[in-house]
């Protein structure tokens, strides 16, 4: 088999390519996972549909009541985007903390979602914000699915063979948010555990509503209901050390049979502390 490389110029062209897509065909966006995988797993026979320069997937749009982020928008573009910083601050923080400059300059939000790595940093944010994912198929039909439903397991999504993520839709809200992660080193680190908190504050800085998703403590991010319950109605200035019991219990319930749970119970206290600090920032 000859390797092939298709760079679709328009939607029709893309649909044709998706129609002919087989098990050796890969959709290429930033390449920071895929091209590394080819080298690591010695995959030399492959066909590429390169969407990295596809202009339809490259923009961040203000739709008035929502924000539409093209699937091939890079982490660098997200962390520097004023609209995202204002409306979805946790997403800007998550993108800021992905890999290195070189990786952020290429890695895309659509790729992060489609790869569905357990440690994917933007995924808990998309879950917390109840993001809708726009998906295109080879028949030029569009469907929408919640990010929470799209990701089904480690590296698993509901995406069909002839489908591609075109954009991510997030509704604007009065909520503020923060993101934090813990890895084995300070920078360029892969999350051992990460989290996104999205909160609604009243004028006295009391938390009136909260949604927390934690990543890498299960096959996909989990809703940290115990911690949410504990934080609800408290001041944003709360110390995570006062939440110790519920944090530890949350981790116990998420990964009861993992030896890493002992480490993650302690790490999660710092994680929640950093997440709250990111909201206060």
């Amino acid at each position, binding site marked *: 088999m000859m390797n092939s490389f298709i760079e679709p110029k328009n939607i029709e062209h893309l649909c044709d390519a998706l129609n002919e897509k087989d098990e050796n065909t890969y959709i290429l966006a930033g390449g920071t996972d895929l091209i*590394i995988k080819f080298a690591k797993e010695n995959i030399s026979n492959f066909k590429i549909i390169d969407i990295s320069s596809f202009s339809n997937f490259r923009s961040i749009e203000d739709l008035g009541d929502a924000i539409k982020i093209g699937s091939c928008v890079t982490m660098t573009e997200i962390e520097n985007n004023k609209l995202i910083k204002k409306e979805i601050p946790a997403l800007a923080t998550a993108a800021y903390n992905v*890999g*290195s*400059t*070189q990786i952020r300059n290429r890695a895309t939000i659509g790729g992060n979602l489609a790869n569905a790595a357990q440690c994917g940093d933007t995924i808990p944010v998309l879950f917390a914000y109840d993001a809708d994912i726009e998906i295109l198929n080879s028949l030029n039909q569009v469907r929408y699915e919640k990010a929470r439903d799209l990701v089904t397991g480690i590296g698993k999504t509901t995406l069909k063979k002839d489908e591609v993520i075109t954009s991510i839709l997030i509704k604007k809200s009065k909520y503020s948010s923060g993101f934090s992660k813990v890895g084995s080193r300070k*920078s360029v680190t892969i999350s051992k555990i990460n989290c996104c908190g999205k909160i609604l504050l009243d004028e006295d800085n009391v938390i009136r509503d909260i949604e927390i998703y934690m990543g890498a403590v299960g096959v996909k991010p989990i809703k940290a209901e115990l911690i949410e319950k504990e934080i609800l109605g408290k001041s944003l200035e709360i110390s995570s050390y006062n939440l110790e019991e519920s944090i530890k219990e949350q981790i116990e319930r998420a990964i009861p049979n993992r030896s890493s749970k002992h480490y993650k119970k302690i790490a999660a206290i710092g994680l929640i502390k950093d997440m709250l600090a990111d909201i206060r920032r």
Partner: protein
Amino acid sequence: MFINVIVNGEKINIDINPTKRLVDFLRDDLNLTGVKEGCSEGECGACTVILDRKAVASCSVLVGQVNGKEIITIEGLEKDGELDALQRAFIEIGAIQCGFCTPGMILSCKALLMNNPFPTEDEIKRAIEGNLCRCTGYTKIVEAVQSAIEWGHGNDE
């Protein structure tokens, strides 16, 4: 597939396998061996090149993806026999030991200065987060970038 690309200011039109990695194309086809391959997984930064004014790891880019774009490698920094201020600073300050990380390191710094001519120390450190150096301990590298800024790195790019 015919690829049009500007490499170090020179227009190149070449019939090439677009599924080749950029690092292999630069080293094997264009003989630009200043591009080093270290980890092959986008972690070490030795293969860093500047693609449309941004630092990227050339081991994680395919040649087909650079069609119509502009690339700068370490070979492209010297102008008319004169080294770039960053290169001079790395030599004078002693920011080079074994030298393997140096091309990627300098290009990460160059990309930073192209977009942010007067970075803070933290911004310099962040720009080279993805460039591993096992010899220098990074202190001299940060110093060299600061010196290059003091000397005027020529933000003519």
